């Protein structure tokens, strides 16, 4: 007892003797420590282990002796350049992102503008309606869309048939599978972007618009010269978040097409998933890191393009 109290008192004296700056620093580290430990053990560790794995020829058959593998340097990364399926997956992912990100952002902005200005009645109803796909399970959404796109009995082709058009086999036709998935993704991602844009629109002061109106600016001019520039930080956030999310898209093709037909909807993430499934742990890790580098590069590009003009 006495020893314990003595130690406590000595500790308190030591703490009081520190400079305030040091004391604050130590306290901050103390609060951050639980998170840091959990992060290092469960995220940092595996992330670094995967980086290490990407330089070895580790396969699932090496499980009992995982360190008895060869270190092969950048061989896995070099192999990516000759991998036709990976190349196809890269092209598919590029097409998907180039199609779905602009489509999502433009449609979300249009809806947000309409809800912010035009629609006054039933506004909450529409907001909930557009947001609903975001909170619905992606798997359920994909399954329902698969039914809608069914060639003979699906709603889409039934509607087309009623106006005399014979619709294609959407998900089974190499030319239409990817566009179908892009439209579905934009439809689903729109709600979240809409909420972000609504918040951004409401942050623009009314007085600016009023001043512009007094100066005789029309609707389009106000949109072009006030809304868009002031929405730029919001736009940056929207585009970066959407791009990062959609470069890694996997559930949509996984549920709707399994990457087919003819690998036309195979994404990079799905290819990585397949390679892990095949037991090529080293190679799959290298693929993941290649994708990581692409995402970082894209983010940097977006930041450059949309940085607020100073």
């Amino acid at each position, binding site marked *: 007892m006495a020893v314990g109290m003595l130690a406590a008192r000595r500790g308190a004296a030591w703490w009081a003797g520190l400079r305030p700056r040091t004391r604050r620093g130590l306290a901050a580290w103390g609060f951050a420590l639980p998170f840091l430990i959990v992060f290092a053990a469960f995220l940092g560790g595996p992330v670094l*282990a995967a980086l290490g794995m990407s330089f070895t020829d580790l396969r699932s058959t090496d*499980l*009992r002796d995982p360190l008895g593998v060869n270190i092969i340097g950048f061989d896995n990364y070099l192999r990516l350049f000759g991998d036709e399926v990976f190349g196809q997956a890269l092209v598919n992912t590029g097409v998907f992102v180039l199609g779905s990100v602009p489509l999502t952002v433009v449609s979300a902005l249009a809806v947000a503008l309409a809800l912010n200005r035009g629609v006054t009645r039933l506004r909450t109803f529409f907001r909930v309606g557009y947001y609903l796909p975001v909170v619905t399970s992606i798997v359920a959404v994909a399954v329902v869309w698969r039914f809608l796109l069914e060639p003979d009995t699906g709603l889409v082709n039934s509607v087309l048939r009623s106006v005399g058009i014979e619709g294609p086999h959407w998900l089974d036709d190499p030319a239409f599978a990817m566009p179908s998935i892009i439209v579905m993704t934009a439809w689903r991602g729109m709600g979240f972007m809409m909420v972000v844009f609504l918040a951004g629109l409401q942050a623009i002061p009314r007085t600016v618009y009023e001043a512009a109106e007094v100066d005789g600016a029309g609707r389009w001019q106000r949109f072009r010269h006030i809304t868009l520039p002031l929405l730029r930080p919001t736009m940056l956030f929207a585009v970066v978040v959407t791009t990062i999310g959609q470069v890694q898209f996997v559930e949509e093709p996984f549920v709707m097409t399994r990457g087919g037909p003819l690998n036309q909807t195979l994404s990079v993430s799905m290819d990585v998933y397949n390679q892990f499934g095949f037991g090529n742990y080293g190679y799959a890790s290298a693929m993941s890191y290649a994708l990581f580098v692409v995402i970082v590069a894209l983010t940097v590009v977006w930041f450059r393009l949309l940085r607020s003009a100073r």
Partner: protein
Amino acid sequence: MRTRRSWAVAVAAMTVSLVTACGRDGGEPGPEAARPVDAGAARGELIVWAMGTEGEKLSELARDFEAANPEAKVNVTAIPWDDAHDKIATAIAGRQTPDVSLVGTTYMAEFARSGALDPTPSIIDGQAFFPGAWDTTVVNGTSYGVPWYVETRLLYYRTDLARRAGVSPPSGWPELTAFARSMRDAAGAQWGLNLQAGGEGTWQNFMPFAWQAGASITDPGGKQFTLDTPAMIEALEFYKSFFSGSLSPTTAPRPGELEQGFVDGSYAAFFSGPWHIELVREQGGPDFAANWSVARMPRRVAGTSFVGGGDLAVFKDARNRDAAWKFVRYLTQPEVQVTWYESVGDLPSVKSAWQDARLSGDPLLKTFGDQLNEAVSPPAIATWEQVASVLDTQVERVVRGVSSPADAARAMQAEATAIGTGF
């Protein structure tokens, strides 16, 4: 999901092992000798993993084993099939394996190659099993398990439509084409024969044709791929002809659509395994029973089908190895196999079990039993899943007219060789 779990497996593997030296030992592993199993009754606790219905029902079957071996206690853990591969892989990496597990036939080579499986001892007689099923346990010349149950593929067809069209079950390839055409043109079916046009598992539908033409996936030793052969090209040509002749749909039927279409007559025939007996009965009801049957594979050079199923394997890290093999021997006794068939519907892997009237008395089942004598499994190589996906892709390219059969065979060979056999 699986990706994340596989990561966990790999990371666990990295951390658990305390081996400090890096680099492979070099040289390929040769055949392994099996240790003998002691005589007498089994003793001690046995931990058994099984998936699906097998996992739910196995403890009932184990009661008789426990009665015969009073000092043994069998603990069965049921595992969902979706998790099975990664759960076993994690157990191997952490050296916390069960004593016995049901292992999917296509995973055998991978687990055996990792050195986790115990070679089959001499108390198991390999001759008692269907040879195609036994082959799934043999990796690099050594058997690492025992076939527990089997399945093979047959032609399901509408007997009433065949009668109307004036055709009988096809004996050869030209007859199969004529059969499908008559089913469509004379009996009014929309599709004469359903074949899988692409996607995962297409190889199971396609490879029987390749085997019938005399093609093989690897040489007999399982060292080299032999995919670019005239027989393979001939089989690809033949497979394609059903799609280009509009006898088979290029759009895969939705879940349930095939069974429904079979009953309403829009799909006149298809190839599938024994589980479809129950599915067709459910869909068609009692009145439909007289309108359909199954037939053996058509012949070209051979009348081969595909054999799959589940194997039982004992792990090197098992705590109760001798009792484990005795339990495996018990599960492969002919009478136990017939009891098991009655309990869960798994077809026996032991040939002599098929003499039992409960199996040979049923004409549908008897056809499956006959076909099992002429059924081949894919080679037991550690990279099979990856090679299978190459076959799936190339067959789809041929079906959709993107590649010629000759180009596809060449691509199959080149890609499979680049992947290697994993040894």
